[in-house]
């Protein structure tokens, strides 16, 4: 039954009060319906995780990512990898359990093919995990530069509000100031940092150390300069955006004060980050990444065992472990899956 009510709080409250008088009626707990869906196999664990992210989604890209997981894309991928590993395991087991039957003698090339495909798929997915984690938690873009380069003014302009204190006095910003924004669907946190210079003031020095530390971890860095020939206060790395600030008082690319060049800068940042999201993974939790890392290390062991011409029973053991590690994401592995694959593939039986 579904009740459609006039929206006033008083009406809703009165109906809820009335419902509460019925025996056995109680408000649903948070997540209770989802839990039921999980328990009744209507959703698997990864889908529940996707749903949780969907509810939390703030930006369009977060919504899209969560939606993909909710729709079961991660489960599908895991099942696909799992199928491959089961196939590899079945090939090995066939030569072990049916040695006196007409099964292929040298299955190792095929097994290696499956293992390598698994290794590369998992590696790719794990690389993408960094990006999907960013989509979930937000990219960090650090604004760096010498003192008084106009960093805080630039941040305020991007945020379209006064978030950082600005002044003519170099060294105004001491702490790292963070602003969360939605950059055309991308969750981006801009970091305003202390101006980088040598200083005797221990408090300012601490702020500069913090700035450098955060700059190292940032996904993207915007370095503001004042004069083209001035030495940069930080070692540039590939991908850094270097802009000459304060264009309002001379030659320059951007000005937080007048807004000149801000849109272009924001578009440039959004463009770069959006490109990176193309490689995003459907793994969205540390749990998923851990399962994949585990599986990957067992696959590496399996490969090493083949290279070392180890006992086939050991190769089989590593393959089984790799499969079980994947399974922790969605379900369980079963010997019947392996046997089923063997019997459908080879004509076993004298």
């Amino acid at each position, binding site marked *: 039954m579904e009740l459609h009510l006039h929206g006033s709080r008083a009406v809703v409250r009165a109906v809820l009060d009335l419902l509460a008088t019925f025996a056995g009626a109680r408000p649903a707990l948070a997540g209770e319906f989802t839990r039921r869906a999980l328990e009744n196999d209507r959703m698997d664990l990864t889908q529940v995780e996707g749903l949780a992210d969907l509810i939390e989604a703030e930006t369009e890209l977060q919504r899209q990512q969560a939606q993909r997981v909710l729709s079961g894309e991660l489960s599908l991928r895991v099942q696909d990898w799992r199928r491959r590993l089961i196939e590899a395991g079945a090939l090995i087991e066939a030569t072990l359990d049916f*040695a006196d039957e007409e099964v292929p003698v040298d299955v190792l090339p095929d097994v290696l093919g499956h293992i390598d495909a698994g290794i590369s798929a998992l590696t790719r997915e794990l690389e993408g995990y960094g990006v999907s984690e960013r989509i979930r938690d937000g990219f960090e873009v650090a604004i760096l530069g010498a003192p008084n380069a106009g960093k805080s003014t630039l941040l305020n302009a991007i945020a379209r509000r006064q978030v950082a204190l600005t002044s003519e006095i170099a060294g105004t910003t001491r702490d790292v100031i963070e602003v969360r924004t939605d950059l055309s669907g991308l969750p981006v946190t801009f970091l305003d940092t202390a101006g980088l210079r040598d200083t005797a003031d221990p408090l300012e020095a601490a702020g500069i150390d913090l700035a450098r530390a955060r700059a190292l971890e940032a996904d993207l860095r915007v370095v503001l300069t004042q004069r083209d020939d001035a030495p940069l206060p930080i070692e540039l790395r590939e991908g850094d955006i270097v802009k000459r600030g304060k264009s309002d008082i001379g030659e320059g690319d951007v000005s937080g004060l007048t807004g000149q060049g801000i849109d272009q800068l924001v578009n440039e940042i959004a463009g770069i980050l959006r490109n990176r999201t193309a490689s995003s993974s459907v793994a969205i939790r540390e749990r998923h990444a851990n399962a994949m890392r585990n599986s990957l290390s067992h696959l590496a062991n399996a490969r090493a065992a083949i290279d070392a011409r*180890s*006992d086939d*029973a050991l190769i089989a053991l590593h393959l089984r472990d790799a499969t079980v590690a994947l399974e922790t994401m969605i379900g369980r592995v079963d010997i019947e899956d*392996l046997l089923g694959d063997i019997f459908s593939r080879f004509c*076993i*039986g*004298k």
Partner: protein
Amino acid sequence: MFHVKHRRPKIAVVGGGHAGVEAASAAARAGADVTLVTLRRDTIGAMSCNPAIGGLGKGHLVREVDALGGIMGEAADAGGIQFRLLNRRKGPAVQGPRAQMDRQLYRAAVQQAISEQENLQVVEDQVVDLVVLNGRLAGLRLERAGDLACDAAILTTGTFLNGVMHIGERQIPGGRVGESPSVPLAHRLYGMSLPMGRLKTGTPPRLDGRTINWSVLETQPGDPEPVMLSFLSNTPKARQISCAITHTNAQTHDIVRENLDKSAMYSGNISGVGPRYCPSIEDKIARFADKDSHQIFLEPEGLESDLVYPNGISTSLPEDVQERYVRSIAGLEQAEIVQAGYAIEYDYVDPRALDSTLQLQALNGLWLAGQINGTTGYEEAAAQGCIAGINAVLTVRGDPPLILSRTEAYIGVMIDDLTARGVSEPYRMFTSRAEFRLQLRADNADQRLTPAALALGIASRRRAQAFESKLAHLEEGRRILSESVVSNKDAINAGINLAADGPHRSGAELLSIAGVSAERILVAIPALGDLAPEIVTQLAREGVYANYLDRQDREAERLRKDEATPIPNDLDLDRVHGLSSELKEKLRGNRPGNLAQATKIEGMTPAGLNAILLAMRSRKKTGTDG
């Protein structure tokens, strides 16, 4: 419970096949007065299917039965006419000893073991009914001798439940050629409304060896150094022979394909499920249409017998078609069929109706073992018979049962699979079913199980002595290995593949390096030369997996803990919160006895397990369900 402390338990075993003889022998060794009831004394130990014992997974079972003091291993060594260690080139974990049998010699060896066993008598009779008193089995009703009182009975009646043989369109009721089914006993079992299923299996036509042109065929000799099935044997007793190999061809396949509609299996006459690993020739050709040839092993059935068992062409086609396709095969152009191949369909009792000792839950005092539980194979039957026989005695005495864990025996894996999961096709052992395959090897079955057999008093004095001597020598070998220090250079000189620079290593460390054999370690550590070669070989086998054993031990510990956490029979599943209705349904159908079994129920989730654990815990606290 019904306990007999002051006199010998009386145990009756019905059936003289591989399950029956092991059950009777085990129960007698365990101290019971045993009566083995069979239709014909001379069929005791008969091999109704292929003339071979052991193989992959199966060889492990034979060794385990042997380690428990059973008779199959020694009988097979007495009857063996061609011994091969399968997977010889692969690791020790998956090596399985196998031997071709002379049927007569094997049967004679089994019959001798039975007749020499104290407190075991054989009665030729037919069981027509069970005698039930106060809800538990009290005896058997025999057709001629009347009632036979017993404290427990073990039914090992194979395929007798509603057995039907199919040859083409012909159907003959019965469990084996020439034997009539026991109808009244079957009625009694059906009357108990046990869960049942239907299975099928098949045999090939038997050929007259004198009509085979052996000279054109590839032969397959036994191993030059035969590996025995029993820990107590050293060499084969019978003369050794070779088998031959031939192949089906396009013409064979055409004949079978043209006549598929006449096959009992394809005409719809058979409803039972057959094993995927033992397809009939019809199945092979229909399902693997792209294969243009299949291998056939021609296995002589004995030294004095002219019968040959063509392993690989079981069938339910009519006799005339059998003759045509057989004669299309190289070497068999003139072959005479002595007995036509047939398919057999039979009912089995869903083994989920049994407890972990193979006792029927619905009737205390009645045990089931062998093919009646949905398994296939002599070895699987023997292993169940052994466990049922021992446990029938222990239970009657009120002693704790012998339940082998998945972590210590293939027998444990099999019985757990059967009683927890049931079967969907005739159940056969595979090494891949054993999670702890690296530890559960055929070579160390005695190290795993003989201590339990000695504690129960079911192993002979001879076995006890052989085992204790082996243990002492292994211990000595391990001491030498751990105390010896071998320089990298000496190791390389001994032919061990190592980088030019490296540390000194103990013998144990050297053995765990891939590819280090017993021969190499003997060169590196001459002190080992004082030990018997088979002891050094055994140490080398242990070394292969040494690096993995710690980890597997931890996993085994976890599994044992789950196995040791019983789920109370009266736990009300309906009142366990957080279980889906589907899962509750499955739990009701496969009532798991312990936590380990619950984890293997299809669709079981970690959340579901937690819910069960939680319910068990809160029940402990409050004394109520839910």
